[in-house]
Each structure stands twice: as structure tokens, then as C-alpha cells.
């Protein structure tokens, strides 16, 4: 095919048009703008102490989500590459690897995370960095199998393309073929999609686990001593009252004003969680549709 650099066509498409026409980009932009709007709104209407706690909870939850994405992608990549290039060479190593993967698969994710809290209470010092990294590690471990399966699947699919064997037969290192040609050049949308899903799932699981372990604690405390997450905030009595206040709208619609100005702590924590999940769902769907990814 001849390529015509149709500059006139290309130029007419502004960045804004591009963002608006692509669902994944549109929702990414909406997520960022929505988050900024929440922050400004809460800065105006929440009292200083509650606002700073809410902001810190958002930051801590997202930080753990991001670290979980980075670590789980790394674990999945190490497992898949190890399986492909290393473990299969030694039957004991191979058996050990599959035993580990089967074990990881068989334990529900929420259980892995709750088990991960135990060392936080008993063994670690109070260093927030070590504790945050440990929690991110536990979260990532619970998602590592998903990434490992995604990467293994991509390698298996790519082996059916001629270029894999063609490159191998030219003496090109298999690790290079997998890392560059299979993953970077042919699987990036799949991995980005997986990263979005892991981020949202991490936020949700972390919030759920923190909610469970925080029930009954004084509002200013967390069990681990780490900064509060959305789960800690939602577990407080004030937040629950805020959320229960939603029912008042059905009796008096004008109560909405009160809800959005005086019951903000619980409402905004719950809304941030739901908004994150919906945005991730739409971004992922948009990416799947646009890049025509296989399920």
C-alpha cells in the first residue's frame, strides 16, 4: 500500500478531537478532571482535618494501587519468562514453579491480602515505607497470576506467528524476541489493559480489606499504623452516617445540597471508590474496542 501523508487530514484532527473520539482516552481525561473536581469541592466544603485525611487516604490508596500494578507486572513477567526460558530446563524447578502458581491460584485474593496484614501488626517496625511496600507486595502477589497468564498467553499466541520462529532461526535471543517483539511491539495494549484492571482491583480489594480490619477502631487510628486508606475512612461511624444520609433525598430532594456540603467525608470516599472503578471499567472497555483485543 502506498502511504500518503495526508497532512491536511491529520492536522484537522486536534488533540481534543482525538481524546473525545476514543473512549479510553475520553474516560482517562474524565477520571483526572473528575478527581480534580472532587479535590477542589472537598477543599471548599470539608473541614481542614477531614479534608487532609480524605486527601491522604486517596493518595495512599492510589499509591498502593500503582505500586501493585508495577510489582504485579514485574512478578508476572518474571514468572512467564522464567517458565519459558529457565524452569522448563529443570524438572524440579518446573514442578516447584507450577506448585507455587497453583497455590497462588487456589487462595482467594482477599484472603492473601488479609493474611498479609498479620506481619504488619506483629513483625514490622513502624517505618511507613517498609509497611507500604509490604502491602503493595502482598497486593501484587495476589494479581501476579493474572499477569503471568496474560503474558504466557501472549507468548503462546506469538509463537504461532511466523516471525517468532523466523527470528529464533536467525540466532536472535529468545529473551529479546519475547521482551521486545512479543511484549513491547505486539502486546502493549493487552498489558496496558491488564494494568488498568489491576489498578482498579487493587483499589477495591485494599479498600475492602482495610474496611474489614478497621471496623470498631477509633477514627484517628489504623491497625497497621500506616496512613488511612479509603477503606479506613469508610469504616468510621461518621462515614457510615454520611452514606446513610443519602436516603433523606428520597423524602426531601432539596436535602441533596446538605448531602454534598455537610456529609462529604463518607460520600466523597465512597464516590471516589465507585468513580475509580467505573472509570477503569470504561477505559479498559474502550481500549479493548479500539485495539480489537481478544478476550
Amino acid at each position, binding site marked *: 500500500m502506498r*502511504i500518503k*501523508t495526508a497532512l491536511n487530514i491529520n492536522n484537522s484532527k486536534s488533540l481534543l478531537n482525538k481524546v473525545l473520539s476514543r473512549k479510553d482516552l475520553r474516560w482517562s481525561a474524565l477520571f483526572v478532571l473528575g478527581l480534580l473536581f472532587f479535590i477542589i469541592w472537598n477543599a471548599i466544603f470539608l473541614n481542614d482535618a477531614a479534608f487532609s485525611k480524605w486527601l491522604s487516604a486517596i493518595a495512599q490508596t492510589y499509591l498502593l494501587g500503582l505500586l501493585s500494578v508495577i510489582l504485579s507486572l514485574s512478578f508476572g513477567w518474571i514468572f512467564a519468562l522464567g517458565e519459558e526460558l529457565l524452569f522448563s530446563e529443570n524438572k524440579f524447578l518446573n514442578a516447584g514453579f507450577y506448585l507455587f502458581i497453583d497455590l497462588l491460584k487456589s487462595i482467594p485474593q482477599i484472603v492473601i491480602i488479609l493474611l498479609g496484614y498479620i506481619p504488619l501488626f506483629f513483625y514490622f517496625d513502624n517505618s511507613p515505607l517498609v509497611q507500604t511496600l509490604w502491602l503493595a507486595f502482598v497486593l501484587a502477589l495476589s494479581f501476579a497470576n493474572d499477569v503471568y497468564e496474560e503474558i504466557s498467553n501472549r507468548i503462546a499466541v506469538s509463537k504461532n506467528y511466523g516471525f517468532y520462529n*523466523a527470528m529464533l*532461526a*536467525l*540466532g536472535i535471543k529468545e529473551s529479546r524476541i519475547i521482551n521486545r517483539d512479543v511484549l513491547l511491539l505486539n502486546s502493549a495494549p493487552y498489558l496496558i489493559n491488564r494494568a488498568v484492571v489491576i489498578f482498579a482491583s487493587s483499589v477495591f480489594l485494599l479498600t475492602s480489606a482495610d474496611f474489614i480490619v478497621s471496623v470498631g477502631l477509633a477514627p484517628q487510628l489504623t491497625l497497621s499504623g500506616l496512613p488511612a486508606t479509603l477503606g479506613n475512612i469508610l469504616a468510621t461511624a461518621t462515614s457510615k452516617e454520611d452514606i446513610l444520609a443519602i436516603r433523606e433525598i428520597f423524602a426531601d430532594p432539596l436535602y441533596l445540597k446538605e448531602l454534598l456540603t455537610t456529609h462529604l467525608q463518607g460520600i466523597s470516599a465512597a464516590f471516589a471508590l465507585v468513580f475509580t472503578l467505573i472509570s477503569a471499567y470504561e477505559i479498559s472497555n474502550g481500549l479493548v474496542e479500539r485495539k480489537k483485543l481478544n478476550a
Partner: protein
Amino acid sequence: MKFSVEILLDDLRKIEIRNLEFENGKINFVFGESGVGKTLISQAALGLLDEKQFKIKINGETYSQYLSALGVSEMIKRSFYVFQEPSAHLSPVMKISEQLNEGKIKEPQEKAQIAKNIFPHLTKKEINRLFDVYPEPYRPSGGEKQRVLNLMAFFAMDKLSFSTAWNSLFVFDEPTGHLDVPLRNAVLSELVRIFVKDKPTVVFITHDYSIVSFIGGKFPDLKDFFNYSEIYADGETLAQRKFLPDEYLKWISSVELLKTKPRKTVLKIKKRIEVYGKTLAFLNENKTETDAVLREGEIIYVKAPSGTGKTTLAKILLGLESANFEAEIDGIKLNGKTSTRVYKKLIYGKRLAIAFQHADEALNQNATVREIFEALENIDSGSLRKSFELLFGEPLENFSGKKIKNLSGGQKQKINVLRALSVNAKVTILDEPLNGMDLESVKRTILLLQNHIKNGNSIILISHNEDVFDKIIPNKIYLKEV
């Protein structure tokens, strides 16, 4: 017939050609690199493209205006398109015989004769048995399906009368790509035999220039009914130019044997190979079984009819197909039990390299040209640049940022061949290296092969293109199922 066609594929890619001309009442052979857009243009002319998928303009009109014009709609009714990939045309839910019967023909005997002419090795009973199947999934073979599709076109052409033939268009898009030379010639002969009856307009798209030798030699009296042209990239658009068969014939008669200085033996394959329950044997020029031997600085041409297993042989040597065989390459013994670790450590890229037949599959479509060559270890970048310029007539820098998927089929194939040769393995296997190339590229590739063996490297060459390779390679070996 004259067409000016503009097809907008997406925001950035566009195929455009002005005044594409097919002479009425002639067989128009259209050559050119594969992938430049010949197929899409001809499919557009016959109304086979989806207007929802592409934005199309023909002769200044929108696609629906063009298709609804009286002359065009009448022409399309009487026309036929032979697809390059026959499975795209054959219905998987109808037996082949039922699909063939859809086109009525004047005389039933004539129908049987046409079938017999393009299936020369089969008896009438065998032909009927072949047609009594659904074309999915493994039977008939690619070559058989291609001939079935040609048969449909021949039946439709035979149905024409003098009064209807003038406004009909028969497009054959690479209709012999899956056939070996004798079968290709049988199809071509049949096409000419049926064509001369009512002389419809025929377009025969191909990159197989050796057709010129056959047609010129076999039908000298009909030369006025053959028109030859080439479609080529002219800047951002496509253009058509006359192709002079005499120039090709003059070139092919002047091509010389590649100069070889064979030294010590580098590869030896035992004379028999067992694969998938069948036995393949190497035969020498005297048709007696022999071991296949290749020496340093030598090129060997492996010849066999379609479907014998030439590509399979390459895969067996590379340990990509399991088979019972014995070979020795530069001191390393290979057989069906050689481990993958040995291949990865000692064979791939060092003693053996390959350019697989289909560049579309062999190259990562999302990689850039630079990335394709960067992946190779320890290559001499100076010599790569020289070879690239020899092959493309342009410096590597002009192409290095381009993605493979945006190149034409011929350009992809040249990169595929150059990548395999750049590795400088002791032996390089080239499987159909001229696939999709235009004549200029063919000439340049031959020069590249000459340089490669001059440096003491060896080549195993697999190809249907006997017209060229019989001329340039003295050392031949035949592969046969025994």
C-alpha cells in the same frame, strides 16, 4: 477500459492511480511488486469493495454512482474475479461440484475437457471425486482450490457469446501462485484457448515475470492479443507503464551462471527423510538417489513439484518439524532427536539461517526496519548498508523508521532476504526469495546472492521460479516422494 481510482484506506493511507488502462479484447498481464495495491484497484473496478470500509472514487464519481452506471452494472454481471486466496471465494457449505454447476456452460463435454486440461494428472473419475467434497478444511489442497477457481472463471468465460464478450471483464489475481511451473502453464494455456473464442477483456495480475517466456514461446501467433504493463509506485501515487516482453526475454537470455568457488563440504543431508509417514528422497540430475551435499561458497537449487515438502525440508533442518533424518553441518550432527538447546546454541544464526517464504509472516509487522536489523547480533553495519543500497537503490536511512506493515510486499520480501543473509551463517536457506518482487528487485537480489557466495557463504535455494534459477544456479538437486 480506463480507470482513475482513489481508495482512502484510513486517515493516513491512500491508493491512487490515474488512467489505468486495460485494452479491450486482450489479455492484459499486469506486473509489479505485490502489495502496491493492484488487488484493491481491480476489486474496486468490479464492485467488490465495501463502501462502508473504504472511501472510493472511480473516474471522478463516488463508488455508488460508478456502480449504478448502466454500462458498468452490465459489465459486472458478466464479469468474474479469481481471488488470489481461493478460500476467500469458495463456499465452505457447498460441494465443489455444486459451486461449479452454478455457471452454466454451452456443452457438457466442453466442461469436462476444460477440467481435464487443468488437472492433467487426474483421470475423469479422480476429478469427479475431487469435486465431490466440501472445500474445508484440508482437502482440496491450495493448488487444487486455485485451479477450481480458475475453472469457474473459464466456465463463465466459455458461456459468453461474441455479443456479450465485449463488455465483460475477467480479473485473475495471482491465479497460479500455488502452482508449480507445469501446472501454471496448463492453466495459462487453457486461459488462452478459451479467450480466443470470444475475446473478452482479461486482466491477469502477477509478479511472476517468467510467464512472459512461456506465453511468448507458446503463442507467438497471438502476440497482438497480449498486452503487458507494470504498476509501480510513483511518489505518493501509483502509475502504469508499458512492459516490453522482449526486454525481459533479452535479460533472461543474458543472465549468467552465478560464479562459485566451492571449497570444503559444509552440509551433508542423508538421501532419505521420513516425515509425516512419507519418505522424501534427494535425486541428482540422473534421477538417482543421492545425499545432498553443499560446499562452502556454493549455492544449491532444490527442485520439486508443489506440495512435495520443500519448505518442510527447511523446517526439518532447523528442528522446527519432527522427522527422521540425518545431517551434518560444519561438524555438528543433526537428526530428529537433536535437542532445541543444541539448535539455539550452535545452529541458529551461526551455521544455519533462513528467510521464510512469506515475508508478511516472517517479519514482525509492528517493528520498524531499523528494529528488524538491530535484533541481529554481531552484524557488520557497513556491509549491511552496502547490501541495503544494492537491493533498494536507496540508503538504509530512508527506510529505517518505517514500520514493516507500511511497506509493499516486494519491499518486505527484500528485507526478509537481506536479514537472513546479513546474519552470515555458514548456510542460509532462502525459500521463494523472489516472491512479490518486481523485475528490478529480482535483478538486484541476484547480485546480492552473488556477493554472498563470493564471501564463502553457502545457500540452499527453494523456488518455483525455474526461469531465473535454472539459468543462474548450476548445482541442482531434486526432492521426490518415494
